[in-house]
């Protein structure tokens, strides 16, 4: 009887110790899209979704867990709320969970392109003075 009680106490202790860790990784209490935790040693937080303006960089330990995702940009940046302020974060810097499924990434190569090649340079040359032009 004493052994059963002792075993029950030990199991209880382990369960109570592992509970916070379990909940922090899973974030099951948070519904919808959520950032589970930081992934990279430093996490850059931006003011804009294009990632041009960096607000601050947080060390991995200081990044909060289970931060709800409040916005998503087409370039995959995630908007999270930290200490009441909204920031954008690059998804590769955090572990996150989406409620929906991510679309598949596929690539298709057109055969026959060996006989053709773009005879133009991308987005350059507008407004250049033209040799021999009338203007």
């Amino acid at each position, binding site marked *: 009887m004493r052994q059963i009680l002792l075993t029950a106490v030990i199991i209880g202790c382990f369960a109570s110790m592992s509970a916070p860790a379990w909940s922090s990784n899973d974030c099951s209490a948070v519904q919808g899209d959520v950032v589970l935790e930081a*992934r*990279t040693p*430093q996490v850059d937080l931006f003011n804009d979704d*294009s*990632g*041009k303006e*960096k607000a601050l960089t947080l060390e991995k330990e200081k990044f909060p867990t289970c931060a709800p995702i409040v916005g998503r940009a*087409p*370039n*995959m940046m995630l908007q999270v709320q930290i200490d009441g302020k909204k920031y954008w974060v*690059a*998804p*590769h*810097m*955090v*572990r*996150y969970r989406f409620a929906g499924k*991510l679309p598949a*990434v*596929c*690539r*298709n*190569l*057109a*055969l*026959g*392109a*060996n006989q053709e*090649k*773009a005879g*133009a*340079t*991308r*987005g350059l040359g507008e407004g250049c003075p033209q040799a021999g032009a009338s203007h």
Partner: protein
Amino acid sequence: MTALRNRMPLWFVFLVLLSVASIQIEHNPFGLSDLIQRHAQDVSNLLITGPYFYGTAGRDSISAAVIDEGTLQTLKMPWPWDYAAHARVLDALLEYHPKAVVVDFLFVDSRPDLTLPQLIEEIHRYQSEHVPIYFEGGIQLPYGEAALRPELAATGVTILDPTLPVYDGIARQYNFTGKCFGGSRPHDAPCLSLALQVFKDIYPQYPLASLRGKMELVWGTRVAPQNAKWITATDSRGGRRSCQLDIGPLRRVYLAFYDTAAVQNPCPYNAEIPVVSLMEGSDDPDLIALARNRVIFYGGALQGAQDEMYTPVNGLLPSIFVHAMALDNLITYKGRPKQNVITVWGRTLESNAAQIIAIMPVILVLSLLHIRSVRARARGGGQSTHARSVTMEYMIERVIQHLWHWLAFGLGLAVGLLLTLALGLSVANWVGIVFISAELAAMLLIGLPDSIWGYLSHVVREAE
């Protein structure tokens, strides 16, 4: 005439054949020798080395993260990207702990972009994590611009020469040395080309072969299995087909000679990492396998960027894969890639000189056999015609002719294979020997040296 022919010395036959071979090798009449050599190199890549003999050690150590039109479309990030976007990709790569990263974009222009510090910070992150990162320097810049933006160069990042030699419009060779862009190196030591420098830094256990001449690229055809999973190709009729070409050996032989385009695979040999997956921080096991502990080339495959090259086994391919293939060759051949020169006892021989020396034993054997057959025929003195029927005589003659050609062909092939296996000379630089050997055999059959000897003897006697 017959009497004169019987007195023809061995050295004369040898000299005539050597002269014919030397003219063909050295002067490349009508560009035919060159054409045969390069065509043979392409066919070898498609038929022999590519599908059967080329190892996968390099393929399993290299990946390419390529920004393509699909990437721009999916991420709604039009080209050109700002420095912050590049920093984001590089940071995502760093998270997978690669062996090294080579940035295949030229950052030459000092365009005003407030996000430049983010890229500089990213370079510092690589440096603090001790992951080598390489940038490419601009070459042939007409106004003396810096090879790399000074702000980026100031980080101390290694700058490499991305020059790619083009041979008849196709990427068949790769430079050993390149332009120097600063950095510390031993006095008088040459600066290495991109793939060579990366190989030297990352694989110090394999000492590099003698850096003379050029590397002859061997193109693999067994596409990385990961590419077959996520990349497909659409043919001219709109049908989808896999990157894993399933062509039997016989059909491959037929196609390689008669419909080369059908046997070429538009998918790259080295694994390609989807940049979209990289940027979304995917935990896909394939992605982890492709990025962790590999040398990663980061570049683009964009319409109008003019950064594409023809390869013998793929057709048009983003140039980033040419650098990747060069590094692949170096890894696969453990620092001793196929070359267009050979180095023996510290002396380097150009491929033409090597071919002339290599064909000498073939010529000697053919000459010896020719002299022996001439003398034997002279000793026989036509007895055999009485003993054998005319048909039999004709048949024997034909069989001997065939055997004679095949002997020459075999001798040439044996010498060529010896040069490849022992001295690393590329197929393209010796295959001419095989054809020339067969041609010399044909010359002996029609009695070219005999005729010349007879004519010269006649002229000398007349003069006396």
